[in-house]
C-alpha cells in the first residue's frame, strides 16, 4: 500500500503512451492523451494524501482537524478544466488535418509534405 497508487500512475502513463505510439486514428490518439493527463491528477492527489485526514473544508469540522494537503488539490482542480480546453484545441487541429489531407492516420500524415 505504500507505493501502490504510484504504480497505478506509471501503469496509466505507460498504457496511454502505448496507445499514442501505436494509434492509427488521430481522435484515438487524443483520447489516449486524455488518459495520460488523468494520470497526473491521480499522482498529485496521491502525493498529498494523509491517512486519517479529512477533506480540507472547515465549515462543519473544527479548524484544527488533520486534513489532507489542499495545495495539490488546487493544482489538480485547475488542471482538469484547463486541459479539457486544450484537448478541444487539439481536436480542432485534427479536424483541419482531415479537411486538408483527407486522412486521420498519423502514420500516413507523417509522410505527407506540405
Amino acid at each position, binding site marked *: 500500500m505504500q507505493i*501502490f497508487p504510484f504504480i497505478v500512475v506509471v501503469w496509466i502513463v505507460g498504457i496511454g503512451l502505448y496507445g499514442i505510439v501505436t494509434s492509427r486514428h488521430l481522435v484515438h490518439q487524443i483520447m489516449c492523451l486524455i488518459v495520460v493527463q488523468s494520470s497526473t491528477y491521480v499522482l498529485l492527489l496521491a*502525493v498529498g494524501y*494523509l491517512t486519517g485526514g479529512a477533506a480540507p473544508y472547515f*465549515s462543519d469540522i473544527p479548524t484544527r482537524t488533520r486534513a489532507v494537503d489542499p*495545495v495539490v488539490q488546487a493544482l489538480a482542480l485547475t488542471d482538469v478544466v484547463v486541459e479539457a480546453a486544450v484537448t*478541444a484545441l487539439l481536436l480542432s487541429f485534427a*479536424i483541419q488535418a482531415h*479537411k486538408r489531407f483527407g486522412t486521420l492516420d498519423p502514420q500516413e500524415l507523417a509522410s505527407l509534405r506540405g
Partner: protein
Amino acid sequence: MTPAARRLVFLVGAAGLAVFYLFGLSGLPGFGRYPGPYGFIVNRVTVAQTNATGVVSAVNFEYRGFDTVGEEFILFAAAAGMAVVLRHLRGEHEGAPLEEAADRDLPPTSDAVRMVALLFTGPIVLIGWWLASHAQASPSGGFQGGVVIATGFVLLYLSGEFQVFRRLTPADVTAAVEAVGAGGFVGTGLAAVAMSLPYLTNFLPLGTVPGAVSSSGTIALVSFFVGLEVTAAFILVIGELLRQTLLLRGGKS
C-alpha cells in the same frame, strides 16, 4: 519505421522510464504519509487569515492566485485558438442546417430526451451559479460552477436543435462575457496595485463569519469572474465544433 519496430522502440523506452520511476519512488515517504509542512501550515492559517472555510479555493484564488491567472489565460487562449484554427478555409461556406441534415436519416429527438433536458436545464444553471458564488464556503468555486453551467447549455443543444443553442448564445455576447471574466480577474489584481499593494492582494473587507457568502474579500469576487470566463470559453468551444458540422466545401455536399 514499421509498426512492429515502432512498438519495440517504445517498449525499450517504457522499460527505461519504469526503472527510473521506480528508483525515484524509493525516496518518497509513501502513500498516506504526506510530511510536508506547507499543506499543514495552509490548513492551519487559512480560516483565521481569510475567513474562508474552503481552503482549496482560498489557495487557488489567494495564496496561489497568480498561478490561477495563468491557468485561466491558458483556457482563454485555447478558446481563441480554436476560433482561429477553425476559420473558414477558402471555398467553404456554411449550409443551412436543414439541407445538411436531409441526407442523414436521423430519428427526431425523442420526447423523453426533450422533457428530461427541459426539466434539468434550469436546476443545472442554478447549481452552477451556486457553485461559482460559494467558493469560500464549501467544495465549490469558479471552475466547477463554470463547467456545470456550460453543461446546461450542452443539454439545451441536446433537447432542442442547434438553432436554439445558437440563438441563445450569440458569438459576440459569449465572447464579451469571456472577456469580462478574464479581465475582471486581472482587474481585481490591478485594483490592488492601484492602492499601492502587491498585485492580487485581498483588499476587500473580510467579513465576520467564516464561510459566509459575503466573507473572504476578493476570493468570492475572483471566483465569480472565473466562473463567467470558464462558462463562456466552453460555450464558445462547443459552438465552434457544432458550427463545423454545418460547413460545406464549395461545390461538394
